[in-house]
């Protein structure tokens, strides 16, 4: 595939993710930190985010499953998830976490369970989209980014969102 077309696809897809609110300007900041000396920076940070989030979501599930729910612990976990999603620009996950913390303050277990469901959903959504953007999901298919690089092009930046 021609480099131009690939770059357009990449930009369009990233554009879409920004428009739909999945990603915010912080993601662009991550892209700015990637260069020839750190070519996998975005991929590395996003991978860390996936690992960290899955651990936190698991801890939250366990915490909410207890007889006596420890709301302080729940709040601590959600605070962490809010922080990491904010750091990579996963806007919808971040916003869901903000709402989650409010419900947690009310010490409402039912409400917290609903929030957890929402966060899980938002997380899975953004994970799927980021994977498509950055990673090899099926071995014989390359991500858009890798195709561009393989064709000799550079990864385009979204300067509008900086």
């Amino acid at each position, binding site marked *: 595939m021609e480099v131009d077309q690939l770059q357009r696809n990449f930009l369009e897809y990233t554009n879409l993710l920004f428009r739909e609110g999945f990603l915010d300007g912080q993601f662009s900041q991550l892209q700015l*930190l990637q260069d020839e000396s750190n070519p996998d920076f975005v991929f590395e*940070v996003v991978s*860390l985010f996936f690992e*960290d989030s899955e651990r936190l979501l698991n801890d939250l599930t366990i915490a909410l499953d207890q007889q006596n729910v420890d709301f302080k612990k729940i709040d601590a976990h959600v605070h962490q998830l*809010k*922080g*990491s999603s*904010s*750091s990579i620009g996963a806007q919808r996950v971040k916003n869901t976490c903000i709402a989650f913390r409010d419900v947690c303050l009310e010490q409402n277990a039912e409400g917290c369970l609903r929030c957890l469901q929402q966060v899980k959903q938002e997380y899975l959504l953004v994970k799927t989209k980021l994977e498509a953007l950055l990673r090899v999901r099926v071995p014989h298919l390359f991500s858009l980014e890798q195709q561009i690089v393989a064709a000799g092009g550079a990864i385009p930046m979204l300067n509008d969102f900086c």
Partner: protein
Amino acid sequence: MEFHVLAVDDSIIDRKLIERLLKTSSYQVTAVESGVKALEFLGLLDDENTNTHVQKAVEVNLIITDYSMPSVTGYDLLRKIKESAMLKDIPVVIMSSENIPSRINNCLEQGAEEFFLKPVQQSDVNKLRPHLMRGKCRTQNQQNIINKRKPLEECLSPDRTRPRFNDFELVQ
């Protein structure tokens, strides 16, 4: 002039971010995951370090730390550094995801140079240079006095190619 920054954050993502941001400014970085690890690195854990001159292998020119950390918070770390005769002149910067005025004021009153709201960006890191320059001169002056060596003026003309910090080795 080479600067070495100690970054402290319990979030692995934020550690990676701050490390990258600092490296783009060509700073040497040591990133640790807790206040305890930071105290250990700074030599503040083992001994009652108040007025003893502890010759460390590594020189730290600035400490940037997250506020909310388990056990030893960024605020605790800030206080311990400012209470240490050896380390009190090292500039400390606090990062936090929460915009709480009383928190910010407490940190600044306790001696923090800056308070950055997360997510930290390049524009924030750009603010570190003047603090680093000042810190470096002060530390060198302190060392010069202790070692009875070159005067402060040396530090203020960085274009001279004279070897400095012979007592210290940067741990890579």
